[in-house]
């Protein structure tokens, strides 16, 4: 008798929780958001800095705007191993499992494997890095938070020219890497410098060199730069490259500044060698907030993520910044769509449409990115493009310019 009574109580309690839980959940629509990550491939070490940030931003949004809208995003991470074969193989499963309305893109390998599928599967994908000339295409379902590397580098080069009036025309050296991305980068830079800057007497390509992606030695290339009296070098895009470049500079007793992305040179080298010192006056540039600046809206938001979502301070770094940018655009894109069509009617198409309907403001993006205006002409914002330029001064990694710097508007697709 006692056992039966106990059983009945249990059933009643369970039903109460079940019904109550459903009632509580009734106002919330949950969407699974897949993230193509890399846990076991070539970029696993880099992605370790991305994953906690992606999770924290999604959780923060669920508790703030998501709660107000009645939308909950459930982030599901998949290991693409940075391998197009693996990603192409797993994508149909992701579609079936998540029925995604948006997706966290996972670098060049997922672009290669999925860019043609995104439109037919109607899944917009957001990428956290800059892009290449071959990605500058109309009517894409993938969106980049940053423009092309060439545009970012050109922003830094024109700033460099402005700051060094005595060096005009600035003598530029390039070290190209024989991979599609490396060649595309140099092609775009060459076109801009030759057709625009040289015509204005501002800069010219003085030396062109080539390198392996992970070279052991770059002394021949650096010697050519010295002989060519080069003022600034574009080229190092991997840790091995920048280590070899700096070693060669030390051998010859010179310091020819480079312009690169933050994750290419200064930060990557300092992470390996534990010092910023050799990079005095080198520049890194990106169209997102700077990690060197801690009195910024981006850092204030990051502090919220640290305090409420247990994000470690160590994730305020160059790699994680890319994840921060990507994640905030993902959640804001869903937010725009949910506001437009209703919380329970968000689809891939609705998110895609919402990308173009209104700009994503600097404030909405929590200060991590400049205002983004997407159009169907390109997968990245083409309006009011701005970059942050960083450098090393007296051994400290700092902003080279206290303000956002505009990217030249006369860069044509190459």
């Amino acid at each position, binding site marked *: 008798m006692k056992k039966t009574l106990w059983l009945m109580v249990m059933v009643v309690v369970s039903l109460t929780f079940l019904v109550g839980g459903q009632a509580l959940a009734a106002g919330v629509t949950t969407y699974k958001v897949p993230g193509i990550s890399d846990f076991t491939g070539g970029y696993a070490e880099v992605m370790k800095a991305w994953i906690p940030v992606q999770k924290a931003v999604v959780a923060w949004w669920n508790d703030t705007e998501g709660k107000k809208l009645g939308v909950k995003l459930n982030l599901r991470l998949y290991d693409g191993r940075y391998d197009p*074969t693996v990603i192409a193989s797993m994508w149909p499963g992701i579609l079936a*499992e998540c029925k995604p309305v948006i997706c966290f893109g996972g670098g060049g390998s997922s672009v290669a494997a999925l860019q043609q*599928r995104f439109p037919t599967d109607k899944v917009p994908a957001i990428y956290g890095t800059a892009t*290449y000339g*071959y990605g500058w295409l109309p009517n894409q379902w993938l969106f980049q938070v940053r423009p092309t590397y060439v545009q970012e580098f050109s922003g830094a080069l024109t700033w460099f020219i402005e700051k060094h009036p005595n060096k005009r025309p600035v003598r530029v050296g390039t070290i190209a890497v024989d991979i*599609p991305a490396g*060649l595309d980068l140099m092609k775009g830079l060459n076109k801009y410098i030759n057709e625009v800057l040289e015509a204005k007497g501002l800069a010219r390509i003085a030396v062109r060199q080539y390198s392996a992606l992970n070279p052991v030695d770059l002394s021949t290339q650096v010697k050519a730069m010295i002989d060519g009296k080069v003022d600034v070098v574009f080229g190092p895009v991997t840790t091995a490259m920048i280590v070899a470049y700096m070693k060669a500079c030390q051998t010859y007793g010179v310091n020819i500044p480079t312009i690169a992305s933050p994750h290419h040179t200064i930060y990557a080298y300092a992470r390996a060698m534990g010092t910023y010192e050799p990079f005095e006056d080198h520049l890194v540039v990106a169209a997102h907030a700077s990690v060197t600046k801690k009195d910024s809206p981006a850092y204030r938001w990051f502090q919220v993520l640290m305090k409420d979502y247990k994000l470690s301070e160590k994730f305020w770094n160059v790699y994680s910044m890319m994840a921060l940018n990507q994640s905030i655009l993902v959640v804001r894109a869903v937010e725009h769509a949910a506001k437009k069509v209703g919380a329970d009617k968000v689809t891939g198409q609705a998110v895609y449409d919402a990308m173009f309907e209104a700009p994503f403001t600097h404030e909405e993006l929590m200060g991590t990115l400049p205002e983004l205006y997407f159009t169907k002409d390109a997968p990245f914002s083409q309006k009011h493009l701005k970059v942050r330029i960083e450098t090393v001064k007296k051994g400290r990694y700092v902003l080279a310019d206290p303000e956002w710097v505009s990217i030249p508007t006369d860069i044509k697709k190459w």
Partner: protein
Amino acid sequence: MTLAAGVHFETYDHDQALIQTRPQWYWLIAFMIFLFTIPLFGGGKVLGFMNVVWITVIAVVGLQINVGYAGQINLGQSAFMGVGAYAAGALTFHFNLPIWITISGAGVSAALFGAVFGVAAVRVKGFYLALTTIAAQYVFSFAMLKLPKEWFGETEGLRLDPVSLLGFEFNTDVRMYYLFAIIGVLMIYGAWGLVRSRTGRAFVATRDNDNAADIIGIDVFYYKALAFFIGAFYAGVAGALWAYYVRYVMADMFTLWLSVWYLGMLIVGGMGSILGAIIGTVVIRLIQEFITYFGPWVTEFEIFSGVGGGVIFASMNMLLGGVIILFVIFEPRGLVHRWNIIKESYRIWPFPH
């Protein structure tokens, strides 16, 4: 091969048949029904896995003919696949030819490219031949990035729309699966026939001792080049299917790393066996799939947080490499050898094997 008690052949045709007994036919038909009904019960995850398995199986079976049967080490299979992918992409992109022409064209293009390295095989062997075929990888990549943009898209690669055959568009994973399955079955059937033919026996003779093969009248030059031609043809067809599946072709998709994996699949499955190539491909892809799902799971639950993330990431790759090393040491004849033992034990049961 041991046959079950009571099974004996009365004609040469029967003895030489690929499928020799009625139970074998039943098993084959049941297996084919299973293969062709996978999309009905498999779901997206299984379909995605199987589609890539079909493509990989075709490339690895080609490599088996080249390496396992003819004994010509080949580290350029991925490049041959890339040539096929670019050829199919370009024929579709520029001329909009039907897929039966583009896929065949991809195979022939890759075969011609492969045969160039086959000619080198006449003069060099082993380590030197391996280095020569690695060169294929670099020649391919360099050529695709330097040839005129109008041909192969240079650094932009080639983007393709879904292909169609007689108005039937292959625009879903299920449709792609059937395309791959049909072509895959045909290619595997062709490989089985080839290795049992005069050509196949010439390959084996060349592999076992090319001097002896030459003395007994086998044209070693011809058969070595032919082995590369056929192996690369398979890779080209696989490349074409890859191009149609992903609908984007870029030189850096076809890396030396991929060629190494294909060799790993042969080692695990078993050298000198078409079935070995299939088993090796499926097993390695399953291990990759396991790692793909295990990696995020580990991070999600932080069960090895004390060990450190870097160790886990490294151990995943070590697991894949370790499997290959273990096979080389403990079962150099591959999983197919184990399978053959199981089959023969079953046939002669209750007697011990």
